[in-house]
């Protein structure tokens, strides 16, 4: 139970990270896409070096809260009998990063590889704690990954991860509840708002969705609305604007839902939240593709009731989506050379080799072009979702992700103070618009205190 909950939280965080990563990618997009990292730095390690390393008894350690690596590790160890891969779960999300930061600050004790979600990757890369994977010539793998996700791992000319998964957003909805209340699947946010009103008025204990102020969800919603609140130029110039046109589109649509109490004020991934999903009191979720696996394990009684629809848009027929979550495994500088070589081999195996299919089988949404375009993947019916080909919806969403989004180089701090500022709108202490502005102001102050030039 605990493990499941943790993993789910993890998945969400991963999703956030992925989104962040994407943002980052978008941020660095200019340089990353025009001059691929792959060609910018010549590999200093040859494949022969890696082969040699795999023939020596070595144990590498991975810190992650993901529970989906077991199959990959078994297969890898079978292929390379002298290698042992240890997985350590040091915590989920913020707890994991705290431990990692501490090990990095202490100068020892860090693992060889660690989960770093795309949204916080800039923060770790900026600290100079990660190995540039161009060292191993992995920049050449660019063609195998979807550009938006690849961009989130390429920062300022360095490649700090191979993408592991992605979280294109979609609308997960409980068809049984929708049918019961005569709700059509919303295709625009206006229809979504109308549905929220209709369902809650018909039965005050039922809500279309739950949200009690989630920074990851909000940033993804801003992203989908075309807002670009965070922009970093170079390494130190940060521009923050949480009241641009896109943000206004979002607040105009979302504020009435908050003011009229049309959203369940329930924290995501809490016990209460799962109960709400299981009992049909929370009828839909707008979130990343990874939720498919989380719903299946977290709400087993919902099998057959849930479906997936494209994320609603502001204009009918518009194509606009965003990423929510996702991440990869970063290699830490502290790792000794022999371990780095082995870890590099493992990364390649996991992200581009036989590990990819094993990941998909374990419920991950891939970031690899070949799989996203493979008919076998797209046409795979999902029994939990009544036999629907949900991957098609996600793949389409991935194509429609609004380009140009960036996360902050201190996104995890930003998320930690979301409740203090923007979150006040969720308890009626301020308007969402002013709350977001207050959030932006605090992020500007923090940025300047930390040596950035923020405005």
């Amino acid at each position, binding site marked *: 139970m605990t493990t499941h909950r943790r993993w789910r939280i993890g998945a969400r965080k991963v999703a956030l990270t992925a989104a962040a990563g994407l943002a980052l990618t978008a941020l660095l997009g200019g340089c990353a896409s025009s001059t691929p990292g792959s060609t910018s730095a010549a590999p200093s390690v040859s494949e022969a070096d890696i082969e040699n390393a795999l023939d020596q008894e070595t144990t590498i350690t991975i810190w992650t809260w993901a529970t989906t690596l077991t199959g990959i590790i078994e297969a890898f160890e079978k292929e390379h009998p002298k290698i042992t891969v240890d997985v350590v779960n040091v915590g989920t999300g*913020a707890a994991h990063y*705290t431990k990692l*930061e501490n090990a990095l*600050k202490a100068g020892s004790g860090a693992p060889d590889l660690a989960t770093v979600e795309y949204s916080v990757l800039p923060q770790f890369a*900026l*600290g100079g704690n990660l190995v540039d994977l161009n060292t191993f010539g992995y920049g050449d793998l660019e063609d195998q990954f979807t550009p938006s996700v690849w961009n989130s791992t390429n920062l300022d000319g360095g490649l700090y991860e191979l993408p592991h998964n992605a979280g294109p957003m979609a609308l997960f909805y409980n068809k049984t509840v929708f049918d019961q209340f005569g709700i059509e699947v919303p295709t625009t946010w206006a229809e979504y708002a109308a549905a929220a009103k209709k369902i809650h008025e018909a039965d005050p*204990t039922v809500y279309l969705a739950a949200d*009690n*102020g989630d920074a990851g969800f909000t940033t993804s919603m801003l992203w989908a609305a075309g807002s670009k609140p965070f922009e970093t130029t170079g*390494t*130190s110039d940060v521009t923050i604007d949480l009241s641009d046109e896109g943000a206004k589109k979002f607040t105009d649509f979302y504020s009435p839902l908050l003011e009229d109490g049309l959203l*369940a*004020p*329930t*924290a995501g991934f*809490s*016990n*209460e*939240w799962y*109960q*709400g999903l299981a*009992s049909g*009191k929370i009828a839909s979720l707008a979130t990343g593709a990874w939720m498919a696996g989380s719903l299946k394990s977290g709400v087993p009684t919902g099998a057959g009731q849930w479906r997936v629809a494209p994320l609603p848009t502001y204009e009918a027929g518009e194509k606009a989506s965003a990423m929510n979550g996702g991440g990869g495994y970063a290699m830490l500088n502290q790792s000794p050379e022999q371990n780095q070589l082995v870890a590099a081999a493992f990364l390649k195996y996991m992200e581009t080799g036989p590990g990819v299919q094993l990941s998909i089988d374990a419920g991950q949404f891939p970031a690899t072009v070949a799989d996203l375009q493979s008919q076998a993947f797209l046409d795979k019916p999902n029994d939990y979702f009544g036999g629907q080909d949900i991957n098609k919806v996600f793949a389409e969403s991935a194509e429609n992700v609004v380009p140009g989004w960036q996360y902050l*180089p*201190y996104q*995890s*701090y930003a998320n*930690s*103070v*979301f*409740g*203090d500022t923007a*979150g*006040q709108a*969720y*308890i009626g*202490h301020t308007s969402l618009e002013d709350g977001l502005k207050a959030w932006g102001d605090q992020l500007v102050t*923090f940025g300047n*205190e*930390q*040596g*950035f030039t923020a405005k």
Partner: protein
Amino acid sequence: MTTMSSTAVRARKGGGRRRRRSWIGWAFVAPFFLTFAFVTVAPLAYTLYLSLFQEKMLGGTAFVGLGNYVQQLTDPVFWDALGRVSIYLVIFVPVMLALSLIAALAIDSARLHFPRVFRLAIFLPYAVPGVVAALLWGYMYGTQFGLVGNIEDLLGVALPDPLSSNLVLISIGNIMVWLTMGYNMLVFYSALRVVPAELYEAAELDGAGAFRVVRAIKLPAIRPALAVTLVFSVIGAFQLFNEPNILRTLAPNVITSHFTPNMYAYNLSFAGQQYNASAAVAITMGVITMVVAYVIQRVASRKA
């Protein structure tokens, strides 16, 4: 005369012997002092050292003297957190101690059936880890689909949200009372058990009633224990962290990242990587707690 000569003897022998004795003494206390130095002094010194610098994500580390202290002491966020735990302390420490005292007196009164069952039942929550207790109560406090929500559905009434801005401190206080009452009750109860039976016999002969016995014998006997539990409870209140930090996932907007001074220090350090500011907050809170605890101890011992 005798006194004088013995003093003289000590003084005469003193020179040579004291030197040797002091070295042997050091050897004996060395394990303690080494442990003390590493476990207590070193972390404090390091925190103090950290608090004098400022490390930026860009631009490295610089010595800022008391800059971090000035910044924190002029930040309304810090005073907001301190004010909140002060209110909490003033309300809940007396409530909790009064309830513990009543429970201890009741169990000690010999008028309860199965006093051991009561003692165990009241003490039991103390054995529950604070984190688990906060999670458990968090589930119950849910107004939508939690226990509070279920009661609302069952009775058809609208109950106030225990995690709303107005009630959250009371909800946290409730968890704290539930958790720590048993422990304090046990301290009071053991203080009562050492009262000599003769005192009660004498009181009975003098015709004292049950309440008179409580006032004249039991309460004075408990006073030293009360002083100790009071100091510990006050320190505990200043260090309030687990309960709000866990409930924060359920009510992230009501319980801010700077809800209590400890949460503030924690979030400065681990969410914002402002280790130096966090160290300054920690030192400041340590000093404030020490002063308050000292004052309470002085007042309590003066009364005794």
